[in-house]
C-alpha cells in the first residue's frame, strides 16, 4: 500500500498540493513553522507586555440606540417632533423607509449622572449605571454599511465580505492557548438559535482552521456530538479512543516529519479532554445563589443572558483568551428578538435592556471582586446604533455615523469618555476622534500586548494583518 506521500506525488498533488495547503512535510520548512504545525495552539509571546489576559466581547446584536442608553442629548429632547436640520445630515446618505422622520424621544426616558465621572445613563440601565466609574466610553464610534449582517461581519472581521479571520481568531493565532484543555476562542449566545449573522463571524478566514471560534451552545452540553452516544458504554469509547491514539502514534513515529498528523493527533486529544473540561467550564451548579442572583438568573428575562455571562467569567478563570458573547432573544412570549427597534422602541429596548443590564453589571461586579477585572477586558459593542429621527413613528433607523461603545478592565482610563457625537446624536462631532471598527480592534490587540501592524500572516503571498490596511490604537483611553 502506498504511503500518504507516495499517494500525493502519484496523483500529481505532491509538493504543489502540499504547498497550496500551506506546508510541505519534510521539505525545508523552518523549525518554528513546523513547531506551529505540531501544536498551533502552543502559547506564544506577545510583542510587548500585555495589560490583559482575556477579552469578553459583548456584541449587542441588532444595534441598540445608545442615545437611549448612554449618550444623553438634551438638544434632541428640546427639538423633539421637529425635522432634522440639513446641517446635521451633511456628508451622510440616509435610507430610512419613508424618508428621514421627525426627531424622536421616548416619552418615559429619563437621565441621570452617576459616579465621580458624572457619566450619563438612562433609566433603562440602572444597574450598569452603578458601575459608571469602571467604564471607558468611546462616544465617537462609527462604521460603514447600514445592514446588520454586513456590519456585524465588519465588526468582527474588518471586512464587508466573508473570508477574513475574526478578531478572536487573530488573537488565538498570535497568542495561542493559555489552557490546553479548552479552546482559546469561545462563542456564547443565549436563546434557541445560533446568532443569525452566522458562524462566518467567528471564522478563522484564511488563517488555519484551528484558530476559529468554538460555539458553546446554551444548556448543559455545550458542544454538539461531544457527549458519548447512549448506545456506547464508557469503557467501549475509552478503548476505541485508546486504540485510535495508539495507531496514530505509531503512524506518527513512523513519519516524524508529518506535522499534519501531529496536529490532528493534538486536536483529537483536545476533543477528548474537552469532553470533561467543556461541560465543567459551563456548569453553574457550584455557583452560589448570591452569584446567580447577581447575574440576574432569578429573572426569566435576564436568566438566559445572565447564564452566558456567568459562563464567560468561568471561561476567563480557565484561561480562555477571547469570549465572544452575542445577545439572543430573551425568554418569554415576546416578539422581541434583538435590539433592532425600527418600531416600538420603548417596548423593544425595555425588554432588551432588562435582559442585559443586571447581568452585565453583575459580571463587572463579579470580575472586580475576584480580582479579575484588572486582567480582563469587557467590551460593549454593536454593529452600529440608531438615528435620533423616528421611524414608523415609534422606532429608530440604523445609524453607523456616530454612536457609543464602551470598554472596562485592565489598561484603561476608567471613568473616562473619548469623543462625542453632535448635539442630536447623528454623527461623530469631531471626525479626528472617529473610532472605526479597525481602531477598536487595534486597541484590543494593544491591550493584549500585540502590535496590530506586526501581527501578520502570509496568505497566498500577501502579508495580512487584523486591521486590513487601517487601524489606529486609541491611545487617549489607555492608562
Amino acid at each position, binding site marked *: 500500500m502506498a504511503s500518504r506521500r507516495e499517494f500525493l506525488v502519484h496523483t500529481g498533488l505532491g509538493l504543489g498540493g502540499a504547498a497550496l495547503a500551506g506546508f510541505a512535510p519534510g521539505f525545508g520548512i523552518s523549525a518554528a513553522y513546523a513547531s506551529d504545525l505540531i501544536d498551533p495552539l502552543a502559547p506564544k509571546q506577545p510583542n510587548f507586555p500585555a495589560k490583559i489576559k482575556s477579552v469578553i466581547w459583548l456584541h449587542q446584536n441588532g444595534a441598540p440606540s445608545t442615545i437611549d442608553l448612554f449618550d444623553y442629548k438634551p438638544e434632541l429632547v428640546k427639538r423633539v417632533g421637529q425635522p432634522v436640520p440639513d446641517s446635521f445630515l451633511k456628508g451622510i446618505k440616509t435610507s430610512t423607509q419613508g424618508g428621514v422622520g421627525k426627531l424622536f424621544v421616548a416619552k418615559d426616558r429619563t437621565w441621570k449622572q452617576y459616579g465621580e465621572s458624572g457619566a450619563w445613563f438612562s433609566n433603562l440601565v440602572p444597574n450598569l449605571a452603578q458601575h459608571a466609574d469602571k467604564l471607558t466610553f468611546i462616544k465617537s464610534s462609527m462604521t460603514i454599511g447600514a445592514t446588520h449582517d454586513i456590519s456585524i461581519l465588519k465588526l468582527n472581521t474588518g471586512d464587508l465580505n466573508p473570508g477574513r479571520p475574526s478578531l478572536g481568531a487573530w488573537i488565538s493565532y498570535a497568542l495561542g492557548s493559555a489552557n490546553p484543555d479548552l479552546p482559546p476562542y469561545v462563542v456564547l449566545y443565549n436563546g434557541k438559535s445560533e446568532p443569525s449573522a452566522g458562524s462566518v463571524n467567528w471564522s478563522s478566514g484564511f488563517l488555519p482552521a484551528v484558530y476559529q471560534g468554538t460555539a458553546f451552545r446554551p444548556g448543559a452540553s455545550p458542544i454538539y456530538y461531544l457527549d458519548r452516544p447512549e448506545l456506547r458504554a464508557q469503557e467501549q469509547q475509552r478503548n476505541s479512543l485508546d486504540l485510535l491514539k495508539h495507531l496514530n502514534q505509531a503512524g506518527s513515529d513512523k513519519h516524524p516529519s508529518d506535522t499534519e498528523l501531529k496536529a490532528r493527533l493534538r486536536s483529537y486529544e483536545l476533543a477528548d479532554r474537552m469532553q470533561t473540561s467543556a461541560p465543567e467550564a459551563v456548569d453553574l451548579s457550584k455557583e452560589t445563589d448570591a452569584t446567580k442572583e447577581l447575574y440576574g438568573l432569578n429573572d426569566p428575562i435576564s436568566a438566559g443572558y445572565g447564564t452566558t455571562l456567568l459562563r464567560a467569567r468561568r471561561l476567563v478563570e480557565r484561561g480562555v483568551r477571547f469570549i465572544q458573547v452575542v445577545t439572543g432573544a430573551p425568554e418569554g412570549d415576546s416578539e422581541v428578538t434583538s435590539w433592532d427597534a425600527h418600531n416600538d422602541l420603548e417596548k423593544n429596548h425595555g425588554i432588551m435592556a432588562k435582559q442585559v443590564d443586571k447581568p452585565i453589571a453583575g459580571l463587572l461586579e463579579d470580575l472586580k471582586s475576584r480580582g479579575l477585572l484588572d486582567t480582563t477586558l469587557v467590551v460593549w459593542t454593536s454593529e452600529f446604533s440608531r438615528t435620533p429621527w423616528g421611524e414608523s413613528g415609534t422606532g429608530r433607523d440604523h445609524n453607523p455615523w456616530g454612536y457609543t461603545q464602551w470598554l472596562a478592565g485592565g489598561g484603561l482610563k476608567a471613568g473616562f469618555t473619548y469623543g462625542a457625537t453632535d448635539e442630536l446624536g447623528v454623527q461623530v462631532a469631531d471626525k479626528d476622534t472617529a473610532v472605526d471598527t479597525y481602531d477598536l480592534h487595534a486597541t484590543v490587540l494593544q491591550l493584549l500586548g500585540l502590535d496590530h501592524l506586526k501581527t*501578520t500572516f502570509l496568505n497566498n503571498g500577501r502579508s495580512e494583518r487584523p486591521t486590513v*490596511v487601517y487601524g*489606529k490604537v486609541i491611545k487617549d483611553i489607555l492608562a
Partner: protein
Amino acid sequence: MRKLLWLVGVVAIFSTALHAEETGLDTDLMQSIEDTNKSLSSNIALQRVDASISDANDLDKMFEVVEAHFVKKGNAADAVDLSKKSRQLSQDIIKLVNEKNFDTATSSATELSRACKSCHTFYKKE
C-alpha cells in the same frame, strides 16, 4: 509580464479617468488605488523594497489624477487637500522604504488608507 500588464492597465485607467470628470471619478481608478494600496501594505510588511516603491509610485500617479479631478470639479477643497496629502504620503513612503525604515513606512501607509476613507465620507458614490 505581470508588471507590464499592470503598467498597461494603469495607463489605460489614467487615460479614461482624465475624460471622466463630468461623471465623477472612474470606479476602475478607485479600485486600482484600493488594490495597489493593499499591495503596498503587504510589500512594506514583507520588506520588499522594489515592489513597495513601485506601488507607491503608482499611487502617487493615481492620486495626481484624483487631485486634478477635484481641482477641475471645484468646491471640493477638502478632497484636493486629501489628494495632495495622499501624494505626499506616497512620496514619503518611497523615501522611508529606501532608507529601510519599514516601521514608519507602515504607519504612513496606514495613514494613507485613512485619508482614502476620509475622502470617501463625502465623495464616494454608493
